[in-house]
């Protein structure tokens, strides 16, 4: 009788509650996918160095990414996910690889579907690797170092061109411009900052320019920051080259160009590769005399695209300059949105597959068809720009050009 007084034994209780818990758990796991189908937001990590030495570029990059997210959301979000909105999770890499990695860890824990950004090559190298541990798709915004995409990381994609492609275009275009003008330039002086970027450009050009009939008179390295360019400019003056090729970051580039003007050093051309200030509206606006005629091979938007011009107006209306960080990040977010749309899933593995098979078109960059091979967009290419009449014009490739090169300038 006493047994009947206990209708529910301890063992039975445990079994049923365990079952119940399992059912509840299964239910809760299933819940988000149900919710997502109804348009739950897709979390996107937006990672830039917004404090520290790179903060200007980082802030510009963040601006581009957030503008893209606003535009995508305003246009109805990701339609194949029931109009899901993109929800940015902003991160600050603090201008260091370690800072970037810490943010990737946070973003991963917060369940982002993808990360966009990084800016500097050193930061991108570290953050893409950290994201790879979680199979988290990562779209590099700038990071031109080619080692970023040569490590076989399945999660890493770069929409823009890498250093190798840019350097090759720079060299081919220089030869084309010089040949087109009747080969007025024969001698070259390279002025470069002494870290990986500047030294890399100098080494490559120093080796390749002689093959095309140029004589490199001297390659002058300088640290960042350099307070005074007078000695360098005096040396350039003594060498009297036809072409000066600077590979510097913004501040040093501006100081160099200004000092050259002060010292009345005007070569036949100033031609830069990824020049810090050469294709910067800020430089042109502030020092039109020093900037005039400078050519550059760099990231650039498609000047013939209405969408690009509309975005430029929008950015300038905010009182900001339309720098390459802005439109590259804008494009990278667009690439991710397109992949989400086609894949109809915010799942990381599916997004990686969708990015890898991307054929995204109709964007604002002067690129060929989008096709990723080992994470690198094969269509990506730089443009040659020249400062002409207080504006920056695209002079090459002809398909996207809105002006003809003016060379020699003196």
């Amino acid at each position: 009788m006493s047994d009947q007084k206990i209708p529910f034994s301890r063992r039975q209780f445990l079994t049923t509650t365990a079952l119940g818990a399992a059912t509840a758990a299964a239910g809760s796991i299933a819940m988000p996918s149900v919710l997502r189908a109804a348009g739950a937001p897709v979390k996107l990590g937006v990672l830039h160095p917004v404090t520290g030495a790179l903060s200007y570029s980082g802030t510009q990059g963040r601006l581009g990414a957030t503008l893209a997210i606003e535009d995508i959301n305003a246009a109805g979000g990701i339609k194949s996910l029931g109009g899901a909105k993109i929800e940015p999770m902003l991160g600050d890499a603090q201008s260091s690889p370690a800072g970037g990695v810490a943010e990737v860890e946070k973003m991963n824990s917060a369940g982002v579907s993808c990360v966009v950004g990084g800016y500097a090559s050193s930061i991108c190298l570290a953050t893409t690797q950290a994201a790879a541990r979680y199979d988290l798709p990562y779209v590099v915004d700038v990071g031109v170092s080619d080692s970023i995409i040569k490590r076989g990381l399945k999660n890493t994609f770069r929409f823009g061109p890498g250093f190798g492609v840019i350097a090759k275009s720079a060299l081919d275009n220089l030869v084309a411009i010089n040949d087109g003008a009747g080969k007025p330039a024969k001698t070259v002086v390279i002025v470069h900052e002494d870290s990986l970027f500047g030294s890399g450009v100098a080494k490559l050009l120093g080796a390749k320019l002689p093959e095309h009939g140029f004589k490199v008179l001297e390659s002058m390295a300088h640290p960042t920051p350099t307070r005074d360019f007078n000695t360098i400019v005096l040396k350039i003056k003594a060498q009297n080259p036809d072409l000066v090729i600077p590979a510097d970051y913004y501040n040093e580039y501006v100081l160099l160009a200004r000092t050259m003007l002060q010292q009345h050093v005007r070569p036949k051309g100033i031609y830069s590769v990824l020049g810090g200030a050469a294709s910067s509206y800020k430089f042109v606006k502030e020092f039109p005399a020093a900037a005039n005629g400078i050519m550059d091979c760099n990231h650039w938007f498609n000047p013939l695209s209405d969408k690009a011009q509309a975005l430029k107006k929008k950015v300038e209306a905010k009182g900001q300059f339309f720098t390459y960080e802005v439109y590259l990040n804008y494009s990278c977010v667009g690439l991710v949105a397109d992949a989400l749309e086609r894949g109809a899933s915010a799942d990381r593995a599916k997004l990686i597959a969708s990015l890898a098979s991307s054929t995204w078109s109709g964007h604002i960059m002067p690129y060929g068809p989008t096709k990723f091979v080992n994470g690198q967009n094969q269509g990506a290419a730089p443009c040659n720009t020249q400062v002409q009449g207080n504006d920056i014009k695209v002079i090459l490739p002809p398909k996207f050009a809105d002006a003809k090169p003016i060379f020699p300038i003196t």
Partner: protein
Amino acid sequence: MLSPTILIPTVLNGLLTGAVYALVALGLTLIYGVLHIINFAHGALLTAAMFAAYFAFHTLGIDPYIAAFIIAPVFFAFGYALQRFVIGPASHGEDRNMLLVTLGLAVIIENALLFWFRADTRTIDVPYAFQSIDLGFTFLAVPRLVGFAAVFVVALALWLIMGFTDTGRAIRAVAKEKLGAELAGIDVAHVYAVTFGLGTACVAIAACLLVPSYYVNPSAGNAFVLVAFTIVVLGGMGSVPGALIGGLIIGVVESLSSLFLGESLGQIGIFLIFIAVLLVRPQGLFGAKA
């Protein structure tokens, strides 16, 4: 490279650059000589003054050289207040505390500037920015010549203040014998603050001289401070003529070593001198033996 057509302009350029280094170092050496603290906030104060000069030109349209007459007194007051109400009280009489307080101030000032003005690099375009005087064999940029002349005026003024005014005598008394000066009725806290104010006014003037040909961003001042420390050691801690001569020497050494070793290695010249001075003549060129 040894031809006079490049050597003479290089030396001239070194002197012009060195003069501005000297002015930054003057402020630093004054503060060290009297307060015996190494002012880590010197670079941040230079940057703040550069921003002041930038905005004076940009928003009020005041030429940086004119603005110096407003910004220098304002920064004198700012420096005075910093020492009187922040650094002095926070240090509780311990020199090492002062060091940490100035380091903290540097971090605060720099980040406040970053917060308000972002990391954006700014420059001003004055009408004379690209004017230069043709010497036949080289061009000397007008803004740099103005800077050179102004540094000597400031150094002379400082020398007159230190030598011939009651404030100057009080400063020298405190620097030599703090306790004695206090017993003689000198308000030491006031003298400390005046000295810090003078040092800060020096960087404010340096900032106004730099802005027409240099750029401004929240870390722009740092580029000058490491060199200024070297000059202070070379010239002798606390010595006004030492800072002036030291600045010119460092300017010429930097310029010449950039010419012969390249810009990247040019900095080596400065620091070789720094080490050599510490080894051979630790009191500096014009410093009294400790």
